[in-house]
């Protein structure tokens, strides 16, 4: 399998870098941890497996790396089936959640390890190790032991070690999970830069939706072993296909109701708490289907329109760049609105107010 050049041009070819075909995994023979996952990752793409713990995202990654075997289905690397291929023959870079830096080796020895097992000659090892360390800005740390490094530095070494042997595909299993928020955000940007510079295919596992948004070309949202939706961050946010995706990604107003009927491009939904609203439907919906109406808080704007909520402002929290309002409707339904604090500075707690949202910003999502 040809390794991508560290220098950067994206490998050519039309085939996918990674393909899952109807992959399922069961650890106990009864329950499925991964159910019938099918997906395809293009060369050079940054794809994130996003989902809560136990959703099957890490197991899928482990199967791809070869540490677990699929119970059913087949995984392809560069269009080659790899179920029978042991992990060390797959040529994948892997960054572990706890970094897994070898504690008995120095930073340089850790980085040299994948090159030594590939029988790279001594001079090239030195050059490649230096280059990889420069890439993560850790020159001068060669002789340190992992225990002498901070969490962020260890993480950088782990990334450098996964890249030093120039794999064309790099897998990362919640690599930033153990770091504090500031450091996490800083390293997210570094990972983005490295991905762009090297043009490698990256498959990244996280439960942090903002991390997934920051890094990914596309996100696969996992829930209970299934991929709920696989799309780029913007459409995942704007057009969630399922209730789970809508609630997992970003804040969301979700109210239960039923479909009354079609009205042009939209469907009209009658909420259980009262009121009818127009919304888009991700799939054709028959009348009387139980649905949830889903609206992002920032889509609620003060005023009246085709979809209007009237109520009392129950809570107003100033958060710097925006203010978060909780609006209580007449039937006790609660809506969260996110508004510009300068423009809507007058909306005080206890005041009556009305908010509107466009039918295009609302989704009617069927209950599965």
């Amino acid at each position: 399998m040809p390794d991508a050049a560290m220098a950067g041009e994206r490998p050519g070819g039309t085939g996918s870098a990674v393909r899952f075909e109807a992959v399922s995994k069961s650890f106990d023979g009864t329950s499925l941890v991964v159910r019938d996952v099918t997906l395809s990752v293009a060369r050079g793409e940054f794809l994130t497996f996003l989902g809560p713990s136990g959703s099957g995202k890490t197991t899928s990654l482990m199967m791809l790396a070869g540490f677990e075997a699929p119970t059913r289905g087949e995984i392809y690397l560069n269009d080659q089936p790899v179920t029978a291929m042991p992990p060390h023959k797959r040529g994948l870079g892997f960054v572990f959640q706890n970094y897994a830096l070898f504690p008995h080796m120095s930073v340089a020895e850790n980085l040299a390890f994948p090159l030594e097992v590939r029988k790279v000659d001594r001079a090239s090892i030195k050059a490649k190790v230096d280059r990889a360390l420069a890439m993560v800005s850790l020159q001068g740390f060669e002789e340190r032991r992992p225990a002498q490094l901070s969490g962020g530095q260890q993480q950088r070494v782990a990334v450098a070690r996964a890249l030093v042997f120039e794999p064309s595909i790099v897998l990362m299993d919640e690599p930033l999970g153990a770091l504090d928020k500031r450091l996490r955000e800083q390293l997210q940007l570094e990972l983005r830069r490295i991905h762009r510079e090297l043009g490698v295919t990256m498959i990244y596992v996280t439960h942090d939706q903002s991390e997934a948004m920051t890094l990914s070309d596309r996100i696969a949202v996992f829930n209970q072993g299934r991929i709920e939706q696989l799309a780029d961050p913007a459409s995942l946010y704007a057009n969630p296909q399922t209730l789970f995706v809508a609630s997992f990604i970003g804040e969301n107003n979700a109210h239960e109701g039923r479909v009354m009927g079609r009205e042009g491009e939209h469907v009209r939904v009658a909420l259980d708490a009262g009121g009818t609203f127009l919304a888009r439907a991700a799939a054709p919906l028959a009348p009387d289907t139980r649905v949830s109406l889903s609206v992002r808080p920032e889509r609620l704007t003060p005023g009246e329109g085709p979809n209007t909520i009237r109520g009392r402002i129950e809570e107003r929290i100033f958060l710097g760049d925006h203010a978060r309002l909780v609006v209580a409707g007449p039937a006790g339904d609660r809506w969260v609105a996110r508004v510009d604090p300068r423009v809507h500075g007058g909306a005080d707690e206890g005041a009556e107010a009305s908010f509107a949202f466009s039918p295009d910003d609302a989704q009617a999502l069927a209950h599965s």
Partner: protein
Amino acid sequence: MARELTPPAIAADYARARRRGRLESLALVAPLLVFIIVTFAAPIAAMLTRSFYTPEFADIMPRTEEALSAWQPGALPSDAVVEAVSADLIAANEAKTIGRAASRFNFEFPGGRTLLTQTARALGGEPARTLADLVALDPRWGAPATWAAMALVAKRVTGIHYLAALDLRLDDAYAIVPEREQNQIYITLFLRTLWVAGLVTFLCLALGYPVAFVLAHLPIKMSNLLMILVLLPFWTSLLVRTTSWIVLLQSQGVINDLLVGTGFIANDQRLAMIYNATGTITAMTHILLPFMVLPLYSVMRTIPSSYARAARSMGASPMTTFLRVYAPLTLPGVGAGGLLVFILALGYYITPALVGGQSGQLISNIIAFHMQSSLNWGLAAALGAILLGGVLGLYLVYARVFGVERMRFA
């Protein structure tokens, strides 16, 4: 009330807090410390003292000690010396302590017991005046070697036990020479003890490492259950375990019966698996195995599976992963287990005594023999001191190589 926060005041407060902390920890340790000093350290120190300090003979025969204090080997005694020795013999005979002095002399001078007791009895109440008087009682008094040996025994502080423990002796001219060949046993025993302890350690590692590996990679419930099998030897009496090896391995035992019964060996070819070094090594390996498995297990439990996975993902084969990543990470356990087993094996006594036969006896068995049967406590103490010194020396080398601070005992 505001206390000043000047540097001297802070330093004083800090020192007071430190002192109190130290006193507290000392108070917590004190009972055990006293117990160990009284029942363990003090008796061992007293015993080791005997290896170079032997006052028995000099206490019983003080005039002899003084008269022979500057003895030149090869010489024969002056009349004054003869008088001092015979006076001591008469006094000791009357005080009925002559037996102990005679036994002590007998260790260094074969036949010395009868020489002293018979001479003392023959002298009656009248000290000998000249050497000729003594020679008349027993011709051995005329030999310079007799007097050279007695001058050695009369010394309170002496190195002869250490010489004996290393198969050396002082000849008639007080030169250090090798022990007579038929009496050279201790070096052989020390070497055999080292060899057996080393072999047992190696066998424990070879047998224990895979077991610890499997246990450490099982679910904790399962491994706790299986750990019982490893710990079982701990819960049965040492004698029961050793005896069960006798049942298994003796020539009319289970294994030989099975081999003969299935026709693998003929009835007159029964294997000698016990009452020799084989028996000692087999039984000791079994008994000491838990001391190897436990530290290994506890170290392996703490090695995350991601290390091996990381190595595999970077292209290392299972073998390379084991040799370069997993095995080095288990070294603290190997070091601790190896040290425990090796040191325990060096001093092992009961098992070789029961199943060792002739060729399976170790240094501790000969120490016990000198303690209990020959009553040559000085020699026993010297052998014990050499063993102790050897163990300490090995420990220091070992700590250098493995790094004792990295070792994990449990």
